[in-house]
């Protein structure tokens, strides 16, 4: 017991985990305390709760199921531009919501490409507005995340196992049973969970594309409580429900996750067996469809905004520079914390994983209000705006970074932990010689994702916005609210390009350093 306690006290991951719980639940408690307790929910709130869970479950299931064939096709085929395509396919996940919605409407809307094609074929037009639009948008945003997580799973199967399977004359079905399905059993629940949690706090997507209040999410109910009813008790109740849902989903996904246990390989970069014949055709088709679905809306956003970039006001470039610095700090923070947490999780402290996933469902409004109440008297919200934005963006990116790092950290511990322990490799030496090189690839990916997410995120804007030193996403909203929609479209392209460049640089860096 004493030994166990000592390990816990020594591991920085546990302290950070406790800090996160304090941040998410503490802000909730402060808001509830301010309101003098929690308030009861009305019938519309329950309807919103039902819709929220339903759409999140459906979006997550679709994203995860569709991601499997895409990831498999990308894992086993080699073609020119494959690396670039994989990176590009990640782009929707890092787009600011409003920009993505405009892109989707342009492609799937009433006068969009899809409906014009349908009309040419003599088929009835379909509407993007309604629950189907919400699901479509959520799959658009999250399919890239699921594909990348599953692709990592495929790449994590040591190539030696595939070669052994080939020399034993495994059929495709055997390969599936012994290699691919165990890997999916390990990776898929995590991917599903991540998408489910993202969709749980969806706000603008659900409203704009949902077509009306039949597609209301909990986050809107929180907003209404905050903005018009000033019912902080209700905001806290709803925030608490989100946290409860997160823990429930996390528990479920842990139960169905089974470690694959492939063991370590020699890290030789050998192409996966690529079955010829109709499977080849199917893979080509899958990749083409995924690329068309994910990249056409992006192309529209770019075409729309490109002509106006030259005339953009200087404020855009100042904001861009500010945002890049902030995103880099956020990413560094997120990576440091995520690494500590992932190592703690891998060493058997499962609750730390739950702590790390909590921020994903923390309502930005409740979190912001709680922080505002905590910090008042200490510093003004204006002074705190940018530091709070940096910190919150780091914390919000954490769950994604964790989902990427945890499987890798577990494998690292299973494969090399005992050897390193027996060599007495500890502290900095272990970090430098074992952990960082072995985790470079997932670290690069996680860092890129964190930086890109921080770049595109508004933070907890309502109370902590420094509008005179705006970040790029805030400036984009300001442009839209001043009728300057053309400038906003151009600003969106700049934002997208920078997010993408940040993501690419980190990801590339990780892959370079992964070569042992």
């Amino acid at each position: 017991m004493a030994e166990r306690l000592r390990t816990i006290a020594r591991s920085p991951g546990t302290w950070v985990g406790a800090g996160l719980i304090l941040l998410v639940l503490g802000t909730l408690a402060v808001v509830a305390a301010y309101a003098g307790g929690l308030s009861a929910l009305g019938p519309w709130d329950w309807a919103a709760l039902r819709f929220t869970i339903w759409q999140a479950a459906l979006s997550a299931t679709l994203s995860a199921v569709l991601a499997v064939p895409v990831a498999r096709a990308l894992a086993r085929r080699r073609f020119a531009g494959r690396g670039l395509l994989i990176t590009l396919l990640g782009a929707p996940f890092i787009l600011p919501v409003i920009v993505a919605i405009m892109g989707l409407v342009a492609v799937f809307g009433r006068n969009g490409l899809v409906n014009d094609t349908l009309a040419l074929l003599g088929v009835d037009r379909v509407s993007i507005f309604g629950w189907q639009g919400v699901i479509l948008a959520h799959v658009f945003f999250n399919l890239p995340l699921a594909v990348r997580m599953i692709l990592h799973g495929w790449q994590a199967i040591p190539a030696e196992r595939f070669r052994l399977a080939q020399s034993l004359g495994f059929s495709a079905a055997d390969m599936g049973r012994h290699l691919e399905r165990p890997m999916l059993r390990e990776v898929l629940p995590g991917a599903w969970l991540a998408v489910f949690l993202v969709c749980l706090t969806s706000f603008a997507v659900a409203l704009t594309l949902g077509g009306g209040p039949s597609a209301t999410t909990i986050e809107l109910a929180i907003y209404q409580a905050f903005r018009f009813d000033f019912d902080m008790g209700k905001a806290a109740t709803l925030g608490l429900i989100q946290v409860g849902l997160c823990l429930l989903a996390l528990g479920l996904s842990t139960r169905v996750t089974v470690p694959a246990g492939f063991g370590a390989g020699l890290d030789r970069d050998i192409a996966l067996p690529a079955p010829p014949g109709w499977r080849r055709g199917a893979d080509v088709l899958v990749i083409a469809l995924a690329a068309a679905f994910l990249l056409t809306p992006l192309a529209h956003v770019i075409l729309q905004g490109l002509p106006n970039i030259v005339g953009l006001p200087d404020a855009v470039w100042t904001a861009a520079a500010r945002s890049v610095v902030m995103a880099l700090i956020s990413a560094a923070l997120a990576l440091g914390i995520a690494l500590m947490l992932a190592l703690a999780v891998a060493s058997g402290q499962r609750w730390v994983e739950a702590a790390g996933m909590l921020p994903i469902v923390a309502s930005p409004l409740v979190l912001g209000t709680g922080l505002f109440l905590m910090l008042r008297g200490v510093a003004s919200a204006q002074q705190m705006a940018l530091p709070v934005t940096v910190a919150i963006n780091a914390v919000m990116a954490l769950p994604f970074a964790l989902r990427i790092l945890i499987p890798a950290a577990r494998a690292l511990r299973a494969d090399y932990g005992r050897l390193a322990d027996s060599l007495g490799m500890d502290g900095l030496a272990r970090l430098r010689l074992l952990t960082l090189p072995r985790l470079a690839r997932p670290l690069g990916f996680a860092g890129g994702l964190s930086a890109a997410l921080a770049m595109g995120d508004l933070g907890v804007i309502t109370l902590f916005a420094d509008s005179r030193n705006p970040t790029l996403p805030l400036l984009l909203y300001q442009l839209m609210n001043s009728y300057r929609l053309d400038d906003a479209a151009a600003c969106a392209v700049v934002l997208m390009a920078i997010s993408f460049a940040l993501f690419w640089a980190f990801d590339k860096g990780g892959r370079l350093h992964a070569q042992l």
Partner: protein
Amino acid sequence: MRFAALALLAVTMPATNAAMAAGPELTLYAPDYFATEWGPGPKIEAGFEKICGCDLVMVTGDVLPRIMLEGDRTEADVVIGLNTDTTLRARESGLFAPHGQDLNGLTLPVTWTDDTFLPFNWSETAFIYDATRLANPPSTFQDLLDAPDDLKIAIQDPRSSISGLSMLLWVKSVYGDKAVEAWQKLRPKVLTVTPGWSEAYGMFTEGEVDMVLSFTTSPAYHIGAEQDTTKRAAIFPEGHYFMAELAAKLASSDQPELAAKFMDYVLSPDFQGMIAEANWSYPSKLPRNQLPAYFAALDRPERTIFLSETEAEEMRKPALEEWLSVFAQ
């Protein structure tokens, strides 16, 4: 880590430290869009600092929730950008002091007697259309309800948007007991309900919808800033719902004289003269002939609907229930 701290310091330093004005500080809370170079904020700051011998510190964000959270410990001396329809709760908080302004000479289409909240600009809700895309726009509200269902409009959600709330009260004021039927007729034409104004307006300019819920003054932006005269407001004889933006003084202010001076400034010709093109709505105290010509020539409704804050607050919840019952099946 040290680099991070330095970088953090660098980004948090105000980028444009407009020559620090000397004298006491007056803190003004304003909505987010005020602060940009395209909003009215910079002009207000420059104009007021010229006459006050003080430093006007503009703090932006969600003004009312923030003031309510801070209570009487707020740093704000004055606020600007509150909306009619949400002032009852603000008044009941007791945080605001009388503005002390003479209300004669206001150029509002309604009578204004409020001694706490002072309007600085106003407009009415209206549906905006593009004359090149919609040759025969509905000419009455009833026409809109009876229009074929392939006329598509975008509105805003009354639970998250102030213009959405105006629309809710507009329909309730025009149709009263028949509001549910009106919403039922409108529903097939509502392509989508967006959380805020900008998403809906974006869909309109992209051509996804034929009409969008906005303001009678929205065409002014397109004429004034883009020389585009194709965007028009559909004017309905049933009347249009009035909406003003307000300024107020905090009772807890430690600069009451400066705060009073700011209230004077809000109604001064300097402020009133720039607000039309800075905020794209009608100034609250400026004769029509002093407006830019195209602004004065905008189509005007004959009837303006105005609810007192008590009426608006009483109507809000039942009207919201009706709206939800139609839209959330």
